[in-house]
């Protein structure tokens, strides 16, 4: 580490503070005692679905389509989870099945 300890403490401090702000801001602006505007209530109802979609994309963002395995292990595993989930509708089974399949693919097939 190139920093002095106090610099490291300050750096971790400002990162913690920034993270706290992003988490607490909506709750500070719209506390329990205040009825949020209808538009905010509406966004609160529609955002969860879209944010789950964003998280799926986010967790696949480093997939390399044009080099290496061209994203084939990811695509196969995602399809397997879709089929497994449509068939059995068991969340833990879908997660375990998809993950094990992905590990087999990247460790043994698309090395």
């Amino acid at each position, binding site marked *: 580490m190139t920093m002095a300890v106090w610099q490291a403490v300050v750096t971790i*401090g400002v990162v913690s503070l920034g993270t706290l702000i992003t988490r607490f801001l909506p709750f500070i602006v719209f506390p329990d005692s205040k009825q949020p505007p209808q538009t905010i209530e509406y966004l609160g109802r*529609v955002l969860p679905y879209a944010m789950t979609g964003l998280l799926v994309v986010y967790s696949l963002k480093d997939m390399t389509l044009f080099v290496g395995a061209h994203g084939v292990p990811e695509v196969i595993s995602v399809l397997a989870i879709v089929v497994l989930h449509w068939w059995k*509708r068991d*969340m833990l089974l879908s997660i375990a099945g998809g993950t094990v399949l992905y590990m087999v693919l990247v460790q043994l097939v698309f090395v």
Partner: protein
Amino acid sequence: MNVGMEPHREAAVLAVAFKAALPLTSPIAVGFLFLGGSYGLLAHAKGFSLWYPLAMAFFIFAGSMEFITINLLLSAFAPVSAFLLTLMVNARHLFYGLSMLGRFRGLGWKKPYLIFTMIDETFAINSSTQVPLGVDRGWFMMFVSMLSRAYWLGGTTLGWLVGGLLPFSTHGIEFVLTALFLSIFLDQWMGEKHGEGASATVDSASSDLREGGNSSLRVRSPEPVGASLMPDSVRRHLLALIGVMVSATCLMMFGPERFMIPAMGGMLALFLVLRTWLDVSASGVGPDEGLHSGDIQEKSV
């Protein structure tokens, strides 16, 4: 909390909530053991004592930002840009907050802790799970949060201590978090299950079995049937598609490091433009939302 509540009664409430939360967090346990583990291992490899990754895990508790902070600590001292970078990387928390305003309402001392521990994984579970009947909503979410935090701290410590010594390859294990998000996404897409247990297949648009079934793994559909201008299932699919398509488009346009902010902006714009079609009237709010949204006054300003 009821002051007059007998101790054994409260213990029972805690036990029930813990049992409901524990299985749902098991994918997070696996994911964080290895993700937190690789974080601890990285910190060790870069020459940090265990206290650094632990302090970051404890105070920051935002995985991607902790990885970035390792790099920040190895660069020149620049607190202002570190602060701004944090706001950019974690801006999605603002949307999580807006989504959880209702669900966290009225939870007293638990609320600050739930907000502080709002990460991708706890948000995904706490925002999507239909907490089973007879399970305390606040404690359920508290246990999801506390367990996730314990997994992350544990994974970080283990990774720092023994990360380099594993006898088998864990390559690809990080996919467990993709699988978690995708399964939740699919559950929301398919809507409420009919009947109980995992044997039920894809259901129709009706969600009159909200109170039926007792599987703790059910994902709630936060929106009600009726009242909207289009069938609930169509609207739900539209919302999910907007989330995926806008994100994927921005990912292709801006690349993996810069796509989050434009994606969130794009979604916000689309939701505001399409509000007439996507909104449901406040009277059609689902049972567990009714607590806080049902009392919305239809007053015009």
